[in-house]
């Protein structure tokens, strides 16, 4: 895959480097910079790859703050399907259309949105190539491509297997597939969710999903069971989740961790089974949340390291592996910061500011960042985890004494309030990033 991409890229490079993808890219551009210094105050060309929470936030912040910049957002999809709250869509408590957002509002503020997949990035020549064969030059590049499923990391789990045993970890068609399978589950059926090791997108997400599916089974198929097979023994908001499971889903939801031998070593899609070191476990519906990485584009461009993710400098979010490249959101190694929509948005806002400083020839600014992740333990009950982060020598580190989870003992009213706040947060964040729902 990467070799193929690379070859195509090399073939094109001689012909296409320097060709502009769109007219907007050409306006008043300075000469291409080759170092980390200023690249010219006006008209610099910023290429943002990926139109999720990180990329769309960064593109908007850059263009809104400095309208003279030529900001191009490369995103193959015309509509973005947001992951937060999408677990509600699995159980029919929300429609996926409520999760979908377009790019018209970004265009309205002057961002040039190009619905093409980026086939290759060449940091050396400050160019990128698109799937349609065109190429574009950039002065600064922001990689915000999120996660890719690491097919090949789990034997037996490839795209064909995912069509039978959905991951539903990229919201959209996979979410619909898993929702359909859950509706068709036999009355006494068994649902299995497998959870990978860290790091992966949305650390508490698998446990919110387990909670909501258990809620659905309790209402609609009380004789069915949910088995969560986890490669870890410790997980986000564990105490709160396990207390909620004991209180609400006893006899329905069963969680097993690595110490129980629950780590999945392979998948047998034909038999609808997952394999541990000890046995094959069959289920009527199997949701495989597989290992993830920053993806083929980042790897081919040399922006990811052996971990599969992209190392960054603190506090600038500049790549440690290429000049004039920034990496934000799930693709980046932000250390203590989780791969979450909130973190992606916060990183994007700070990275936009750091980019403007680089354009002005200034050194990066220190700052603190914060993250908040809400999780639903039922459609009407919520919990949260929050942390504040500060730059350490080489990593974003949590600020001691701050952050933490919702209290273990809380009234129903408090849990209900956090479920309401989760929805309000989603509405505000998506509205401020994408505009109103498409």
């Amino acid at each position: 895959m990467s070799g193929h991409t690379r070859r195509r890229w090399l073939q094109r490079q001689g012909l296409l480097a320097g060709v502009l993808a769109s007219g907007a890219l050409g306006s008043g551009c300075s000469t291409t910079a080759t170092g980390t210094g200023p690249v010219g105050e006006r008209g610099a060309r910023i290429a943002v790859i990926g139109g999720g929470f990180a990329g769309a936030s960064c593109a908007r912040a850059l263009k809104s703050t400095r309208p003279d910049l030529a900001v191009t957002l490369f995103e193959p999809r015309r509509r973005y399907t947001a992951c937060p709250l999408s677990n509600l869509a699995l159980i029919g408590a929300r429609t996926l259309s409520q999760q979908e957002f377009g790019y018209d509002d970004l265009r309205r503020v002057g961002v040039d949105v190009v619905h093409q997949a980026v086939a290759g990035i060449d940091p050396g020549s400050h160019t990128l190539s698109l799937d349609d064969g065109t190429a574009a030059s950039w002065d600064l590049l922001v990689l915000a491509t999120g996660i890719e499923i690491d097919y090949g990391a789990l034997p037996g789990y490839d795209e064909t297997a995912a069509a039978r045993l959905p991951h539903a970890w990229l919201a959209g068609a996979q979410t619909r597939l898993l929702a359909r399978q859950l509706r068709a589950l036999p009355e006494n059926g068994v649902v299995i969710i497998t959870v990978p090791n860290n790091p992966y997108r949305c650390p508490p997400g698998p446990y919110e999903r387990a909670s909501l599916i258990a809620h659905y089974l309790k209402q609609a198929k009380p004789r069915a069971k949910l088995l969560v097979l986890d490669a870890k023994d410790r997980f986000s908001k564990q105490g709160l989740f396990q207390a909620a499971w004991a209180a609400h889903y006893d006899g329905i939801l069963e969680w097993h961790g690595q110490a129980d031998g629950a780590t999945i070593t392979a998948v047998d899609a034909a038999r609808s089974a997952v394999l541990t070191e000890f046995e094959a476990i069959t289920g009527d519906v199997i949701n495989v949340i597989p290992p993830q990485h920053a993806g083929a584009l980042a790897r081919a461009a040399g922006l990811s390291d052996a971990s599969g993710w992209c190392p960054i400098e603190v506090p600038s979010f500049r790549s440690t592996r290429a000049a004039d490249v920034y990496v934000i959101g799930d693709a980046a190694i932000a250390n203590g910061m989780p791969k979450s929509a909130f973190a992606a948005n916060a990183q994007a806002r700070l990275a936009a500011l750091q980019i403007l400083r680089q354009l002005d020839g200034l050194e990066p600014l220190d700052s603190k960042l914060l993250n908040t992740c809400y999780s639903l333990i039922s459609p009407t009950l919520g919990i949260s985890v929050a942390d504040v982060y500060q730059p350490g020598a080489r990593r974003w580190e949590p600020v001691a004494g701050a952050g933490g989870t919702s209290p273990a003992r809380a009234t129903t009213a408090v849990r209900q309030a956090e479920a309401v706040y989760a929805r309000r947060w989603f509405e505000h964040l998506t509205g401020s990033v994408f505009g109103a729902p498409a």
Partner: protein
Amino acid sequence: MSRSATLRRAGLLGLLLGGLALTLPAAADSSAEEADSSTEESLEKSVAPSGASAATGETLALPCGGCHGPGSALGHLGELSVAALREALDAYANGTRPGTLMPRLARGYDAAERAAIARALGAPASPGAGTP
């Protein structure tokens, strides 16, 4: 049934903390000292040095926009005065104002940082309004 093997091994959960280290005391307990207007100086010391320029209220306030802003049902901080916002942040940090999330977040900022955030986000005092 297929779950027997995993059940056999239940009860062996590791008790090691895999999560974030939250046991150290806050780096600077600022509740005693009231930050004055010389905030730039204070901020210089407050964020760990990494070879970068010192944080400003504007940069510290950036992530607040994830929840707060015009039209947000979680509140638009620009509708509060600087003084009211600072008072609220201080009260959250000092544990005198209840909240689901904000006390956990406010504790991550010292008094000077909270004051700088309030100045960055709060509505400027209107002339003659009597706010400092």
